[in-house]
C-alpha cells in the first residue's frame, strides 16, 4: 500500500492526499484513453467504454451520494455529445453510479471477478436506462440489449480487470488475493 511511502509527522493526511492524487491520475488516464485511444480501437459499439469504467471505479471507492454526483456529471457530458434525448444519459449514469456505490458497500465485493461483473452489469444497466428513457422500443431495444450492450459490457469489464489488476493500490480498492 501507499501508506509506507508517505509515513511521517502528518502521516494519515499526507497518505490520503497521495492516494487521491494517484486515483485522480488513473481516472485522468482513463478519460484520455476514452477520447484519444478508443476511437483507434475499432467499432465504437465494441470497444471498452473507459469513461463508464472510470465512473464505476469512482463509485466503488466513494459514498453513494458522491457517486451520484459523479454519475450526473458524466451523464451530462454524454448528453452534450449524444443529445438524442437530453437528460437520458444524466439520469442513467446517476442511477447506475449510485447503485454501484451502494451495492459495493452492501455486498462486500472485494473480488476481482465480482468487480468485473459489477462493471459489466453497470454498462448494461446504463444502456437499458438510456434506451428506455430515449423511447427505443420493440425489436430495436431487444437487439441493443441482447447483442450490442452485452458485447460493450464484456469489453469494458475486461478493461476493468486489467485496470484493477494494475492500479488497485493506486485506486485504494481492496481485493482478495
Amino acid at each position, binding site marked *: 500500500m501507499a501508506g509506507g511511502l508517505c509515513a511521517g509527522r502528518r502521516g494519515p493526511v499526507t497518505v490520503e492526499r497521495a492516494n487521491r492524487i494517484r486515483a485522480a491520475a488513473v481516472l485522468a488516464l482513463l478519460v484520455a484513453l476514452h477520447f484519444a485511444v478508443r476511437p483507434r480501437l475499432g467499432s465504437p459499439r465494441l470497444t471498452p467504454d473507459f469513461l463508464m469504467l472510470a465512473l464505476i471505479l469512482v463509485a466503488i471507492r466513494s459514498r453513494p451520494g458522491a457517486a451520484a454526483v459523479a454519475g450526473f456529471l458524466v451523464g451530462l457530458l454524454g448528453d452534450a455529445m449524444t443529445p438524442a434525448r437530453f437528460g437520458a444519459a444524466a439520469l442513467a449514469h446517476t442511477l447506475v453510479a449510485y447503485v454501484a456505490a451502494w451495492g459495493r458497500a452492501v455486498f462486500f465485493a472485494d473480488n476481482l471477478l465480482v468487480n468485473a461483473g459489477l462493471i459489466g452489469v453497470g454498462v448494461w444497466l446504463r444502456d437499458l436506462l438510456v434506451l428506455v428513457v430515449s423511447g427505443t422500443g420493440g*425489436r430495436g431495444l431487444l437487439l441493443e440489449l441482447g447483442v450490442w450492450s452485452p458485447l460493450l459490457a464484456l469489453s469494458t469489464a475486461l478493461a476493468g480487470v486489467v485496470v484493477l489488476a494494475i492500479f488497485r493500490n493506486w485506486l485504494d480498492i481492496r481485493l482478495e488475493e
Partner: protein
Amino acid sequence: MARQPARLHSARDTVLLLVCLTLSLTALLGPREWGDAVGAGLRRTVAVPLLWLQERAEESRTSQARFRALASARDSVAVLAQGVPMLHTENDRLRALLGLGRRMTARYVPAEVLHQALPTDGRTLLLSAGGNDGVLPLQPVVAPEGLVGVTRSVGPHAAVVMTWTHPEFRVSAFTQGGETFGIVAPSVPESAREPLLELRGVPYRDSVPDGTVVLSSGVGGVFPKGIPIGTVIGVAREATGWERVYQVRPTVNPGTVSHVLVLTQSSTWPADSVPDDADR
C-alpha cells in the same frame, strides 16, 4: 472485511441523489431548447479538449485508409477529367440554346464523425466541424453513398447532426425517374436486424417496384434535390384504397460512417441519375 455502517447510507447521500435525479428529470422533461443550450455550452467549454483529443484520434485512424481511397479516386478522376472541358463547352452551348441559367454547384465542409459510447449514438452524431468552418443549423449532411441527416445545433468547433434514424427525422423524396413522391421517415416499429426507412404518402394507385432508388426531392428547401436516400425493398403496410407505405433500405448507416460532408450551399446534388423533370 468489515464496513462502516455509516458508509451504507446517509441523509446526505439521499439528498445528493434526489438533487441529481431532479436535475436529470428537468433536463429530460423540460423544453428541448434548454437541453440544446446546456449541451452547446458544455461542448463550447469543458468538452473542447476532449473533442480535440477524439478528433485527432479519428483523423489518425482514418488517415491511411482515406489516403488510399483518395489516391484511387484521384486516378479515376484524372481519367474522367480529360473529357470535362469538351463537356463543359457542349453543356454551355446546349444551355444557351435552351435558355437555361448555369447549373448550381454544391459547396461543402468536410467533417469527421466523433462517435460516442452511448447506445443512442447514431440517432445524433457529433461532427468535428462547426460554425467557425461555415456550418449552420439545418444544413444537409451526406456521405459519399447518400443522405446522413441534417445539422441540428452548431457550436464554434462542433455540430450535432440529427440522422435519419432519429424519430423526428423527415425528408421529402421521390423515386428515381420522378414517378412517385412521398415523405421518408424512420421505420416504425424498428426492424429487428437493421434500422430501415419508410416512404410514406404514396397514392394507392402508384406502385413502386423493389429495387427502386429513392432520392431527396428538394421540396421544403432543406435538402437539395437528388441526394440518394435508399432503395425500396417492399411494401411495409397499406391503407386500402388510400395509400401505400414502402420499406426503404438506407444507403448510409450512421452508426459506422466516419467521414461526412456538410452541404453549406446547394440546390441540386450532383448526381447523374437525377431526372430534370422531377420538380413537379
